């Protein structure tokens, strides 16, 4: 910690933005978490119709400023669904914590009722004949899809052009699931989903001050989701708090026979094990050499978080990252572009203008098409060794905690971030980010920390994140809009 960073924890916490004034009833409803709204809906203390009206009204008022949505569902249909939920709940047919909850999905998820564009002119007229499994699961659980969220062309990139960060609308919300993160941060929906190939759930969640979870590879079906790279892509929740992440994950996780990479491991009841605490757990952290590459306030927020973990009874100790960690990012990037090139292979034979006049993606996937197949295979071999080393590292620890990273939301950038992020895509191990403070410079922007754990132990990850969240108040802060 440098002298500039030696603020007391109290001073650090005082850097919060002043709290909002008394919210209107609509704002109060829109600001509810899924867990809070679910409890009130189940108790019939809140009408799904009123909740939906509050959300639709807020979208109408604020989305022109935020630009989170690519397309919106018919408001009458949303209200009809809310009325159905009200009737079902009233008749004692409550489906669970997502029943009557307004949600959004990234515009890579196939939907029958709305186009699926992935923000490419090539898919401008694409109207899928079926819903992505994630969409079907959300709707089956009673959630109501209010719209599809913005992303960069084909999900390529760390920013989301056209969407504004709710904490500073002159800035980008991060990407590629920036529309989902901005929508959740701005209370335009109660929860959303995104996709994560290199960090595209976690980066915008960090930038927008919300929770983002990339589950274990295979935990959530990717059927009906426009891919970048099928061995690196993951779908997961973006939420206002950790408990909501647990609820959303429970809603979308599970084996899907239509997804060949879907895992059959049983889905745990994540909310049931959320409050067990982390006393006696071991939190691993990267070496000082790795941490030295972090931005100072990001590192400070991380060190404050470690203090919280210790106060909660965990042991924090340095752990050696896999020895081939430096090659991991190279493997991730090579596998990503080679697989993307395979997906785009037939599209590339079309006239170049079909990708649109400003496409930055086409040239990248053309380059990916010219890579030797042997290079791709060797990257997968190295990846196999990396995964073995990840297992070995996690034999000594319960959670790996890392600083969050600066994103496109911050012009300063953070060069080592993609490695800390992409290592979880390359390995398939789960990881999530939670809010952990704010930048010291103006404008005040959210910071966060990342946690990862062993595969299919999302319950462990969520419990650690929940313990941290409950010991802090960062998640309670809202951008002023």
């Amino acid at each position, binding site marked *: 910690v440098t002298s500039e960073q030696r603020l007391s924890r109290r001073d650090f916490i005082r850097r919060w933005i002043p709290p909002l004034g008394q919210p209107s009833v609509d704002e109060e409803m829109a600001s509810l978490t899924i867990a809070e709204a679910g409890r009130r809906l189940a108790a019939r203390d809140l009408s799904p119709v009123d909740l939906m009206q509050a959300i639709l009204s807020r979208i109408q008022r604020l989305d022109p400023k935020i630009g989170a949505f690519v397309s919106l569902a018919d408001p009458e249909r949303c209200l009809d669904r809310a009325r159905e939920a009200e009737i079902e709940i009233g008749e004692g047919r409550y489906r669970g914590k997502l029943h009557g909850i307004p949600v959004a999905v990234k515009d890579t998820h196939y939907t029958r009722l709305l186009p699926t564009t992935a923000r490419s002119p090539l898919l401008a007229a694409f109207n899928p004949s079926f819903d992505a499994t994630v969409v079907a699961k959300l709707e089956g659980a009673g959630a109501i899809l209010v719209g599809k969220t913005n992303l960069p062309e084909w999900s390529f990139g760390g920013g989301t052009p056209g969407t504004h960060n709710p904490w500073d609308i002159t800035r980008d919300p991060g990407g590629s699931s920036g529309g989902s993160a901005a929508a959740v941060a701005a209370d335009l929906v109660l929860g959303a989903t995104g996709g994560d190939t290199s960090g595209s759930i976690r980066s915008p969640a960090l930038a927008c001050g919300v929770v983002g979870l990339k589950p274990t590879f295979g935990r959530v079906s990717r059927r009906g989701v426009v891919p970048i790279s099928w061995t690196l892509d993951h779908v997961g929740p973006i939420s206002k708090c950790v408990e909501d992440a647990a609820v959303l994950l429970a809603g979308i996780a599970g084996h899907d026979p239509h997804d060949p990479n879907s895992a059959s491991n049983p*889905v745990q009841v994540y909310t049931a094990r959320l409050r067990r605490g982390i006393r006696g757990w071991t939190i691993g952290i990267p070496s000082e050499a790795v941490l030295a590459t972090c931005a100072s306030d990001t590192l400070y927020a991380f060190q404050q978080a470690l203090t919280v973990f210790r106060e909660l009874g965990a042991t924090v100790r340095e752990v050696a990252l896999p020895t081939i960690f430096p090659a991991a990012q190279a493997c991730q990037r090579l596998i990503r572009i080679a697989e993307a090139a395979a997906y785009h292979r037939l599209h590339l034979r079309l006239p170049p203008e079909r990708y649109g006049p400003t496409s930055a993606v086409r040239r990248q996937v053309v*380059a990916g098409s010219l890579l030797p197949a042997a290079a791709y295979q060797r990257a997968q071999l190295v990846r196999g*060794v990396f995964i073995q080393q990840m297992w070995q590292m996690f034999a000594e620890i319960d959670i790996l905690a890392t600083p969050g990273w600066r994103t496109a939301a911050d012009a300063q950038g953070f060069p080592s971030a993609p490695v800390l992020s992409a290592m979880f895509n390359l390995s398939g191990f789960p990881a999530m980010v939670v809010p952990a403070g704010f930048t010291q410079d103006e404008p005040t922007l959210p910071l966060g920390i990342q946690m990862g754990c062993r595969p299919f132990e999302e319950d462990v990850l969520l419990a650690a994140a929940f313990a941290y969240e409950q010991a802090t108040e960062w998640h309670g802060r809202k951008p002023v809009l």
Partner: protein
Amino acid sequence: VNIGGVGRDPAPISISPRAVSELCALQGIPLGEGDAEAVAAILAEYLQLVATIDAVELDAEAAPPLQLMIAQRPEVPSYPHVTSSLTHSTAPPDQVQS
């Protein structure tokens, strides 16, 4: 294509736009104005990654086979450390959904 030395200290890689044009033509990929130059620069960057990966000392025969990837937890005998140091219990059967 000039890959100037593969190993621990890979040299810069360059590739000509003409080579890109010819390779794309072989694959039936049409190029627009300026594409060959832009793709050549991007490809050189990717080939640098290839050199980085080639620099990893790896016994290819001993490397684990590509199994996608962790769709199932590995067999415990292959990873005896996995279950040895859990400081938390796994979910009891009544808390597991099918």
